């Protein structure tokens, strides 16, 4: 129990990840799927950020000339998060474009529906 | 020079056949000329390589330390290669006439020629990998021949064929791997190559593996329960059925089994183990089973196919005795059966070619109208049934004597199988002959006997030659036996 208290960031993020994952996996509506994807990613960024933050330290920006590393938090996770955000943005953009085209063609956002239609098309 | 002579008979037909593929011959004469030239040339090459070029072990290429592409003509190769190369010419001549009513001869003869090289490859191969290689090629080269008609029936037969062959190859492959891992080389050395200290503790595994590999090669030799492809494959043109499914392909399977037993695993390792009993029993069962089915099959070619199944297991039985005497007997039967069965198929082919009759109740009373055909059938049939002094008798005699001397109870079982199968053989062969010579009293449809007569010399000459050879070799087997004993004891 107290484990949870000590690293509740991690716990929350994992729960979030689960939610996102399930959405991505089980939702039929494509838009919701990709929202799930974003939740998933966000959860991980939260996780990383939480990893990176060390209690009682400040962001590694030289304001008052302190160059002692132990004064600052770890910058690398932040870097990772930024990269991750870039990636997820691009993926989201790509998938939304895809969804758009699918909707144009099939007039539906429901994955099963779309599958069915396309199979019918193949059929004839 | 000698190295080259060894490889030539393998390479030449393959290249020549490949070259024939795109060629469109202007007329029949031209094609026959070329094909016959190639075949005869190659037979000369082959016989030269077998009897004059003593090149020993010829390694073409090393894949790795152990794996290499190696040819080596030893006694066994000599026997097999001689048999094949002599019969090939005869069959080719026969095929010229026969194929005129099948069509697409260009393609046929191209693959037919290729197969020649591949079979010799199997015969000459000096290590397990090379044999496996040509074994696979054999399947592929013969597939177009089996499916020659290319109608649905033929294609289906082809698929069955390929499926069974691949299955067999897969099993054989496992055997290969173990020889590769547990042998000190993959060369064929009389007495086996397994390293005792390596196999210590793995005997059980290796025995199982041997069994697996045995049945793997057994597929080509149509041993129970992997026989189904053979009768199906008799949709192929008769020369194919005769040469490949009575001599080349199936005998290649037997040949491989002999290699496996005597030259890879080694008899002293297998002798008296449970696996020996298993394969003896398998052979015995197949012997009886094949003859029984043959007796129950009215379709002449398929009947002969079943008879092949039974007879192949005679050879396997001999080999499975794992004594020199047994191997000698097996080889003797291999040669005899090759001659006999090819003749029988030729007769069936002649009937089919002239009258398009395929079932034995359709040939009643043909005996007098096709004398050469049916006299050959009667004589070789008697020989197959083991009527002394014809050929079949000696091989049976040798087999059974070997079995007795091996003083192995299971082998006695095999002798009983031989006897039963002998009876069935007599019945299924003579039933056709009887039907042909003593037609039952009944009304025959008008035109029943139309153009029923012996085919022309292209077909009859091979028939006569084969029959004569069969009888002669049956009357004077002593010299042959001497040679075979040398082979079987690893001297030659």
């Amino acid at each position: 129990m107290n484990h949870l208290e000590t690293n509740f960031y991690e716990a929350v993020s994992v729960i979030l990840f689960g939610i996102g994952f399930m959405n991505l996996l089980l939702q039929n509506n494509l838009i919701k799927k990709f929202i799930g994807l974003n939740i998933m990613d966000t959860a991980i960024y939260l996780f990383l950020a939480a990893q990176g933050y060390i209690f009682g330290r400040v962001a590694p920006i030289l304001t008052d000339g302190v160059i002692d590393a132990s004064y600052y938090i770890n910058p690398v996770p932040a870097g990772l998060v930024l990269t991750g955000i870039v990636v997820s943005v691009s993926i989201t953009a790509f998938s939304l474009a895809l969804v758009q085209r699918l909707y144009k063609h099939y007039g539906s956002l429901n994955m099963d529906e779309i599958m069915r239609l396309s199979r019918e098309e193949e059929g004839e | 020079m000698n190295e080259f002579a060894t490889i030539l008979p393998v390479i030449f037909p393959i290249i020549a056949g490949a070259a024939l593929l795109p060629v469109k011959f202007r007329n029949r004469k031209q094609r026959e000329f070329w094909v016959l030239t190639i075949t005869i040339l190659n037979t000369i090459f082959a016989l030269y390589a077998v009897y004059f070029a003593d090149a020993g072990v010829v390694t073409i290429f090393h894949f790795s330390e152990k794996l290499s592409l190696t040819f080596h003509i030893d006694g066994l190769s000599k026997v097999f290669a001689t048999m094949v190369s002599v019969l090939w010419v005869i069959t080719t001549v026969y095929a010229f006439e026969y194929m005129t009513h099948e069509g697409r001869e260009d393609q046929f003869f191209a693959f037919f020629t290729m197969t020649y090289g591949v079979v010799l490859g199997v015969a000459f191969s000096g290590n397990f990998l090379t044999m496996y290689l040509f074994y696979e090629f054999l399947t592929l080269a013969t597939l177009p021949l089996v499916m020659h008609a290319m109608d649905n029936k033929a294609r289906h037969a082809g698929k069955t064929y390929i499926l069974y062959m691949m299955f067999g190859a897969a099993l054989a492959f496992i055997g290969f791997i173990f020889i590769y891992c547990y042998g000190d080389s993959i060369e064929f050395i009389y007495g086996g190559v397994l390293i005792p200290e390596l196999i210590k503790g793995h005997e059980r595994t290796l025995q199982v593996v041997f069994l697996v590999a045995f049945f793997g090669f057994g597929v080509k030799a149509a041993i129970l329960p992997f026989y189904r492809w053979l009768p199906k494959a008799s949709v192929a043109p008769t020369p194919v059925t005769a040469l490949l499914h009575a001599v080349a392909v199936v005998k290649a399977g037997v040949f491989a089994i002999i290699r496996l037993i005597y030259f890879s695993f080694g008899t002293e390792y297998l002798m008296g183990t449970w696996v020996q009993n298993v394969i003896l029993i398998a052979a015995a069962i197949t012997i009886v089973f094949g003859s029984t089915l043959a007796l129950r099959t009215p379709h002449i070619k398929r009947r002969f196919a079943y008879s092949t199944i039974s007879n192949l297991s005679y050879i396997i039985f001999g080999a499975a005795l794992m004594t020199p005497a047994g191997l000698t007997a097996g080889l003797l039967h291999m040669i005899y059966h090759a001659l006999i069965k090819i003749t029988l198929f030729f007769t069936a082919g002649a009937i089919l070619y002239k009258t398009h009759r395929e079932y034995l109740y359709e040939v009643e009373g043909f005996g007098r109208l096709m004398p050469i055909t049916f006299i050959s059938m009667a004589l070789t049939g008697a020989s197959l049934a083991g009527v002394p002094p014809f050929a079949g008798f000696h091989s049976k005699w040798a087999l059974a004597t070997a079995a007795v001397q091996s003083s192995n109870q299971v082998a006695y079982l095999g002798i009983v199988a031989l006897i039963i199968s002998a009876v069935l053989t007599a019945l299924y062969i003579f039933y056709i002959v009887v039907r042909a010579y003593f037609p039952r009293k009944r009304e025959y449809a008008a035109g029943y006997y139309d153009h029923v007569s012996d085919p022309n010399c292209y077909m009859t000459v091979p028939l006569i030659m084969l029959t004569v050879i069969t009888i002669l070799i049956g009357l004077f087997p002593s010299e042959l036996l001497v040679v075979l004993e040398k082979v079987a004891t690893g001297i030659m």
Partner: protein
Amino acid sequence: MTGDSILLLPVLLPLFAGIGIWFLKEEKQRNFIVFITIAVELALIFYVSAKGGTLTVWHVTSRLSFAYHIDGIAKYFAVIIGLIWLLAAIFSMEYMKHEHKPRRFFMFYVMSLSALISLCFSANMMTMYFSYELMTLLTFPLVIHTQEPQAVRAGMKYLGYSIFGAGLGLLGFFFLNTYCVTTEFAPGGTLNMALTEGNEPLLLFVFFFMAVGFGCKAGMFPLHAWLPTAHPVAPSPASAVLSGIITKGGVICIIRVTFYLFGADFIRGSWAQTALLVLSLSTIFMGSMLAYKEKLLKKRLAYSTVSQVSYVLFGLLLLHPVGFAGALLQVAFHAAAKNILFLSAGAIIYKKGCTLVTELRGIGKEMPVVMWCFTIASLSLIGIPPAGGFVSKWVLAQGALSSQFGVLAVVGISILMLSALLTAGYLLAIVTDAFFPGNSYDYAAMEKREPNYFMTVPLTILAVAVVFFGVFPKYLGNFIDTISGVIF
């Protein structure tokens, strides 16, 4: 080829003559040639029998060879076969007039003779087995001669049984090839005692199976079933020689195997002997029983063959000189008698065309000569003096008693008696009906149907022979004693 090549002559002559006969279209001429051939053959047989000798035709392999040689058994059987073959031939010259394809018939008829002679003369297993198979194959066309579907079916049955029997024999040969010193026949057996040591059970099994296998030709239970099917469908002369002579082919083989390969001493007292005796006895009984119930004449005769030939086997398997003598006598007399019976049956079919025993009432009046011969033959088979059958059965009984089988001997004799009664039942019934048709028979419809001399002469000769040797058995007896003297 080493030895007196004259031995080859009696074997080859009928073979080539037969092939020659195929080309003789004209009947008289053909009959003449057939007669001459067999007559010459007979002369040759006498000649070589007198001369004796051995001949090795060629060595197939070191151990297998084709070899002939003349000994008592060979002479005995060869002479009987030759004689009867000649007579049956004469008969069939007439009989074949109403059958189709006489050429083919005579061709195979004559060729079969060569197989039989080669069987008698054969000097080792290989030759014997070869002749045995040859005999089967050459007589096969005789069986299916009519080419009726049931004839063909019977023919295949004949082929199957014979080859299977031969196969069992071959099975034995394989073992003997290993366990014998040589595969040449030698009185007293050629077993290699050193090897035999410890393998007796195996070898006894082998012997048992060989005997059963060759017993097939001799119509011994359990492989008898082909005989009643195959014999009747053949033309009568063919059935005559089939069940008179060919069955003896099996007997020869059994003699060779028992006395010349294994040797009587090896078998005497073994379970195999007992088993075979029981088999033969049961065959005797069963044969007579079936014959008694059978209505079709030729089939009835066939069953009677089944029973009668097993007398021979019984005698042989007693493994005792007297039994042996009885067996050989039975061979001769049964051969003669059974031929008479079948030939007369043939004559009846030929003249009157009736095949059922119920149709034979009063036939004795119509063809007296034939039926007299028939009667004598029946008496011989039953075993009533002065006919020969009496002698053989008497000696057999003596043999059974003098051999050391207590119970089995008694049982055997009683079965012989029983079978004799049954025989009387199934043969004398015909005779009485034939001669004493009773009042209901209208003599008006009766007409003389006596066949011509081609048929009557052979019958008469045989009948006379049966009676003669029945009265003076010692001519045969002495000869047989010389044979058994060699063996025992």
